[in-house]
């Protein structure tokens, strides 16, 4: 839910502004052709607007129906006590919010979410960058390696979760069997059954799953770094390491920042993998805000509490997204405003 709302916010300054202008120009250029024929010179503007309105309306209606309306319904539910059937009559004000925020399981969930946000970025950023830099060099089997790295991301999350669940089974799972063969022993309660280990196990699986996306995005970013710069650096006698540190990584900045943003939002609303692997257990060691609200809603039928939790999740995601936008992504957008000329010439160069 939060994703649908926050990503457009994040993307808007960068992309959505220039696009309509460009599209408009293209349309105008096209409609200018038949004008000399003189078929309908009266209201091309009006007609165009009607056309746009017509094509936008269905999308807008669907957006309102499936995004805005559910959000409003969640907000409405969050101030009622409702067991899932019958009319909404038991208004409780903000009591559901109080009960969510004072619930240890929820605050633990929030902490787990934040741990996952930090751990995902702290692990995947250096690892993904290193792999991307390696795979960016011309070498044998490059395509194959890229594919292998990317495959986990292509797998459906639930399928990957079920497979990992089986691999991680205590005693009879593949991982424990291999470890036993070399004389090692995993945690007695298993990787997913030990409250001290489970969250880290989930983070390892998430890293496996999402590293491929980071690598592919970084590789794409690397394609945008001009060959000329490398040549110039080589002429100046820079080592490979210096080139990466002084040229590649700084120019990869916008890609890294955007990836980190996506990773952060994904971590905040993490649900599927946790649900399949642990269901939030053992002993609530891996709950996330999303598993908490599903648990309260569909399992316990406390739809009011689930509504309040979903609104809190939405606000947390929104605040973090806006803060990130303001403090970190601004660099990228400011470059567009302040140094527009410089940016343009850079774009020209890369193309």
């Amino acid at each position, binding site marked *: 839910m939060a994703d649908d709302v926050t990503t457009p916010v994040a993307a808007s300054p960068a992309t959505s502004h220039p696009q309509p202008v460009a599209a408009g120009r293209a349309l105008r250029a096209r409609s200018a052709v038949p004008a000399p024929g003189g078929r309908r010179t009266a209201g091309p503007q009006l007609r165009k607007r009607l056309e746009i309105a017509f094509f936008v309306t269905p999308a807008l209606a669907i957006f309102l129906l499936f995004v805005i309306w559910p959000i409003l319904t969640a907000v409405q539910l969050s101030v009622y006590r409702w067991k899932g059937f019958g009319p909404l009559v038991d208004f409780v004000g903000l009591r559901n919010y109080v009960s969510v925020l004072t619930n240890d399981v929820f605050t633990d969930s929030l902490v787990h979410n934040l741990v996952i946000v930090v751990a995902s970025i702290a692990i995947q950023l250096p690892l993904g960058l290193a792999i991307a830099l390696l795979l960016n060099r011309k070498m044998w089997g490059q395509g194959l390696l890229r594919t292998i790295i990317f495959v986990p991301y292509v797998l459906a999350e639930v399928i990957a979760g079920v497979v990992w669940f089986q691999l991680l*089974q205590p005693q*009879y799972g593949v991982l424990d069997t291999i470890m036993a063969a070399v004389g090692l022993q995993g945690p007695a309660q298993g990787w997913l059954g030990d409250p001290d280990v489970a969250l880290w196990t989930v983070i390892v699986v998430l890293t496996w799953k999402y590293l491929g996306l980071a690598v592919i995005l970084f590789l794409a970013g690397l394609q945008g770094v001009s060959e000329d710069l490398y040549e110039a650096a080589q002429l100046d006698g820079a080592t490979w390491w210096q080139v990466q540190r002084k040229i590649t990584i700084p120019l990869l900045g916008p890609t890294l920042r955007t990836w980190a943003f996506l990773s952060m939002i994904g971590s905040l609303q993490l649900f599927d993998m946790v649900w399949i692997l642990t269901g939030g257990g053992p002993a609530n060691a891996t709950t996330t805000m999303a598993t908490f609200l599903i648990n309260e809603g569909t399992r316990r039928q406390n739809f009011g509490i689930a509504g309040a939790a979903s609104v809190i999740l939405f606000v947390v995601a929104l605040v973090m997204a806006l803060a990130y936008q303001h403090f970190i992504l601004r660099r990228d957008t400011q470059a567009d405003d302040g140094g527009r000329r410089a940016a343009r010439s850079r774009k020209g160069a890369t193309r």
Partner: protein
Amino acid sequence: MTRTMRGATAVAIGATVSLLAAACAGQGSGGQGGGGETTGAGGDSTVTWWHNSNTGEGKEYYDQVAADFEAANPGVTVQVEAMQHEDMLTKLQAAFQSGDDAQIPDVYMSRGGGELKAEVEAGLVRDLTDDAADTIETISAFTGQYTVDDKVYALPYSMGLVGFWYNKDLFEQAGITEVSPNPTVEEFYGYLDKLKSAGITPASVGAGDKWPAAHYWYYNVVRECPFDTVETAIAEKDYSDPCFIEAGEKLQELLDKEPFNAGFLATPAQSGPTSASGLLATGKVAMELAGHWEPGVAGGLTEDGQVPDFLGWFAYPTFPGQAGDPADQMGGGDAWSVSAGAPDAAVDFAEHLLSDEVQTGFAELDMGLPTNPAATGSVANEVLAQLVPVRDGGGNTQLYLDTRLGQSVGQAMNDAIALVFAGEAGPQDVVDAIESAAEAE
């Protein structure tokens, strides 16, 4: 090029308009048509029936039952919808949320307890006390859990017990030659010790799904608390009787013996060979606390798809000096409820499902443990038939407490019990969790 563009635009617009029109029209007729269960002038009526026997012989049997009823009652059509159990629960919940009689099935499965009470309070269920009086008389031993304010709202057709399903071969291997059908806790601990010293994991428990772990606590409550004490506690939302704490202490005593499979905190109940049922079915553990469904579940988890021959059953152990009646058991069942908006024929059909004839066929196919006394002798599976005399032995059958208390309180209780299994909560925490959830309700 522009001409074709315009043409394309026109076609697109036309297509969209017709799609929208179709969508609206579809919605309109759907709204007006209802579920097609209106009672016509000639007394024709349609009864929609949801059940969860969606495979094999069970499904065929129920289709036949519906067809027989239609033949005996001209003008009545029974619309059977067989669904996978979890799907059925989800669909039922959605239908109830809609509050639309056309979407709510006329005859559906109820699990009783707090869930049924909530449905009754929302005015969704039909009072059967007078309309089905004869049937209720026949199965009166079991209608207690389906009664709200002295009115019966569902007809229980299967009532099973929770107990220990064990592997006879592994017990023998551990030198346990005599297994008591209703052991004392000392005898039970003796089994655990012998199994452990023979290098066999004594028991599996699907604490990952929480309820299988919670069953231990429920049973301890049944043993430690008199039946009426529990009833009063639930009615008054007051769990201060020390027997509830004793139940938790007995659970900790068991946990200290470490009888469970490795990783039991994350073990699922029934899905796959590494689930608690899977470990029992594949001979990896010696026993599991489970309900009457276990032979069916275990059969689905073995390589050849057959119910393992080695399965035996004994009742949950009794404690010395326990306050609960030793004949009391813990279990649960399924009942047929009739929705408030259903035609009268739906009540007749629900009664037909409880008739001697239908219940006997039900028992012969091992679809459950029938409640109609005329059919209890027909349970085909010997191990399953073992449960009937225990169930009908004069004690009360307490419903699974999570069902009894309703989802909200029940899940809070299960979560707390799972924490006890993880060693992160104690007996008092379970009681506190129940009380605070009950208060918030």
